[in-house]
């Protein structure tokens, strides 16, 4: 073939900056959309994306990828994997699609923001492919669950979720509007692509893909790993932008944005991926624990990337490391005790065998979560019968992460985990509550950005949710019966404990 090598013409295709004359540079790149901190077009000339692709390569590769993923799906459709899948796995899928499908589509807007308002030609081109990628991710993660809508109304939440005020949706929207939909182009580059995508998305899409393969859901495993190949490319948009900021005296700003995004991503993944990996995935399918995945990908790989690019570890790194032992257990506890408030059925994940695994992976789990949380519930269930809503009262939500403020039950010095603690803050006459010093610190970085938001708990207290009852709350969440989560095992797990009790007697 007498074609040019890509290297012979690639630079020309991204050499597209010009000096505007009929409008000002500021009008063309307004700060609220561009976020370039006053750095002019010239300094962005050195932007160099590590992962290069041309339009021609893109359409061919993506066509092949889709052909593979869609044909595997079609081939396996007959097998009706979900008919025999364990309930925990079905729950993971409902959670995954409801949490991510629409947000992926939204990410194409964020990529387009970079493609319009980024000041580097290479960044704009890579974001063009990124926008296409997210367009793909939204569509493919709607096409796949659509096959299952006939099984349960909960699968409808793949498209319904983001239109509701269900509490986990509010948490997801708050996070993604903060790092993506409501951020300027540079913010998107640093917070979405560099921090969130490079740092964390592997957890959900590779970790879960590994579990899926183990569980026998080849269709999903294929889908997730295919999605991640796109991610591996467009996640690299942010790195070169970080370098330019550092080289031009903006390291502190870059560090701050990345620090905010890492912690916010952490609180989301602890809510969604943590329980999926450590409580929903059937025991014999668990590749690794959530903590082990986090240690490998975030504290291992991503930390190295962070340092290589010229940034420091976030100031709260040790706090986050310690939080690996606590946060997601609390998220699972909160979700399971109020499973009606989510759109997937929630496995408790606490059979004796599962508890042994949890103790192995999180030494000290039994003397805290076991003894001071699950055992009291089990005792009550054995005595009075199981109930649907175990959570005894409305909980306080963190005004940043929008999730319950949790700690390790039964904590005492020397035990694993950390104590329950509120981190309150008074600002302009209003009292805010945060689940960690980091969440509070994020608020303090830009109070005007966060101060007007009301958590779901705030709304309840303010009388915005009527009636102010359990039913009123579920209605506010747009969760009707048929959608509301149940105990995924319908309390059959209690039998093991009943037998233990009978034997002990």
């Amino acid at each position, binding site marked *: *073939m*007498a*074609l*040019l090598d890509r290297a*012979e*013409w*690639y630079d*020309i295709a991204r*050499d*597209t900056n*010009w*000096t505007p*004359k*009929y*409008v000002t540079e500021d*009008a*063309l790149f307004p700060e*609220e*959309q561009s976020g370039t901190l006053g750095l002019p077009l010239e300094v962005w000339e050195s932007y160099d994306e590590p992962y290069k692709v041309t*339009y*021609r390569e893109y359409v*061919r590769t993506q066509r092949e990828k*889709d052909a593979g993923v869609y044909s595997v799906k079609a081939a396996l459709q007959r097998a009706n994997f979900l008919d025999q899948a364990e309930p925990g796995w079905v729950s993971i899928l409902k959670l995954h699609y409801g949490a991510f499908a629409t947000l992926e*589509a*939204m990410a194409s807007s964020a990529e*387009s*923001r970079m*493609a*319009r308002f980024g000041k580097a030609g290479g960044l*704009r*081109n890579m974001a*063009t492919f990124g*926008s*296409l990628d997210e367009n793909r991710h*939204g*569509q493919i993660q*709607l*096409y796949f669950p*659509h096959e299952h*809508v*006939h099984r349960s*109304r909960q*699968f*409808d939440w793949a*498209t*319904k979720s*983001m*239109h509701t005020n269900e509490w986990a949706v509010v948490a997801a929207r*708050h996070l993604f*509007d*903060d790092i993506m*939909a*409501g951020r*300027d182009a540079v913010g998107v580059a640093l917070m979405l692509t560099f921090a969130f995508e490079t740092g964390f998305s592997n957890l959900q899409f590779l970790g879960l893909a590994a579990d899926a393969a183990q569980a026998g859901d080849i269709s999903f495993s294929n889908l997730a790993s295919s999605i991640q190949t796109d991610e591996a490319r467009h996640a690299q948009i942010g790195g070169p932008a970080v370098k330019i900021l550092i080289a031009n005296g903006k390291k502190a700003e870059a560090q701050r944005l990345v620090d905010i995004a890492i912690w916010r991503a952490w609180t989301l993944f602890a809510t969604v991926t943590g329980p999926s990996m450590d409580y929903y995935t059937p025991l014999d399918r668990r590749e690794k624990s959530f903590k082990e995945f986090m240690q490998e990908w975030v504290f291992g790989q991503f930390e190295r990337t962070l340092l290589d690019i010229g940034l420091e570890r976030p100031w709260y790194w040790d706090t986050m490391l310690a939080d690996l032992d606590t946060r997601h257990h609390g998220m699972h506890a909160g979700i399971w005790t109020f499973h009606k408030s989510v759109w997937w059925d929630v496995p408790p994940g606490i059979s004796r065998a599962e508890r042994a695994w949890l103790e192995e992976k999180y030494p000290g789990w039994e003397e805290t979560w076991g003894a001071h949380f699950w055992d009291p519930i089990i005792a009550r269930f054995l005595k009075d019968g199981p109930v649907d809503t175990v959570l005894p009262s409305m909980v306080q939500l963190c005004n940043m992460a929008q999730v319950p403020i949790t700690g390790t039950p039964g904590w005492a010095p020397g035990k694993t985990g950390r104590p329950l603690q509120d981190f309150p803050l008074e600002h302009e006459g209003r009292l805010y509550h945060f689940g960690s010093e980091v969440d509070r610190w994020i608020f303090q970085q830009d109070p005007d*950005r966060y*101060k*007007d*938001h009301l958590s779901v708990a705030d709304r309840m207290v303010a009388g915005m949710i009527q009636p102010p009852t359990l039913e009123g709350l579920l209605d506010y969440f747009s969760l009707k*019966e*048929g959608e509301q989560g149940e105990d995924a095992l319908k309390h059959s797990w209690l039998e093991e404990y009943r037998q233990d009790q009978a034997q002990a007697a």
Partner: protein
Amino acid sequence: MSTKPEPLKPLRTWSHLAGRRRRPSEYEIVSTNLMYDAKNAESPFELGPNIPLSKWFKKYRHGSPLTGRDWEEFRDPAELTYRAYNILQDGQETYIEGLFDQHNELRYDAGLDTAWVDVLPRLYTPARYAFHTVQMASHYLVQIVPSSTIRNCATYQAADALRCVSHIAYRTAEVKKTYPDSGCGTAECAAWENDAAWQGFRALMEKVLIAYDWGESFVALNLVAKPAMDEALLRQLAATGRRQGDSLLGLIADTEYRDVQRSRTWSAALVRFAIERPENLAVVRGWIEKWLPVAEQAIDAYCRALPDSPEATTTATQAVHDFLRSLDLN
């Protein structure tokens, strides 16, 4: 005593599509009802109504005079999905690759007329800037339009523009290899910034790029500026090229023009959809009246520079008028 409502039963499709009689297409399944930030006029984003981008979207999306439709009801006539887009464009790119390969084998560039080689760095290769501004402006539409079905169309249009940029970049490198002193690969920025031939399109696109109202952005780009540019660059430049013995340029332009037709088809459909609310008709017409003269000047500034092409301005302008007439805005 109150009766408990029946638990919701599973449906055969998404709940927002379930009311229709026929089964939804793949396109509808994956493209509709995805935009959650367009519904809340008070506070588009979860963070609240006062963050800078909430204000931006309230002003430029919710506050647009192009309004009053349930934009989620808009459908792309081509029902293009991501999957279909890549199948389509992979085929087109394979064809282009074949052309490049074939022409290179035949040492095509060596046979170009020297006068024409002088024209290329002036009137052809700088077009990468022009198409790149269309790429950027299309990306603005992606974030600002009020529904996911419109957003999809803009997403593929932005990619199509990068496609044009890529072809030009490729040819720039190729021509430079055969004619290293031609200016191809080095003179383009200066041409885009200084040559009289480009100042019309440059001024037009710089201004389109800052027309931030979603409706005006759509009308200015898709109904006026992009058609003007496509007629000048993909039709008139190509015609001139053919007359000057450069058929390859025209062959590339022809396949790019298929993307143009796709853009015009969905744009026309969006206009028809918008003016079902009669008040929107005057709004659309007003923007066309505002932008058309600027676009006509841009066509003229460029086309008059095309060698031996006295009809180019008239033909290109007429083609734009024909497209606008086809929108039935009277």
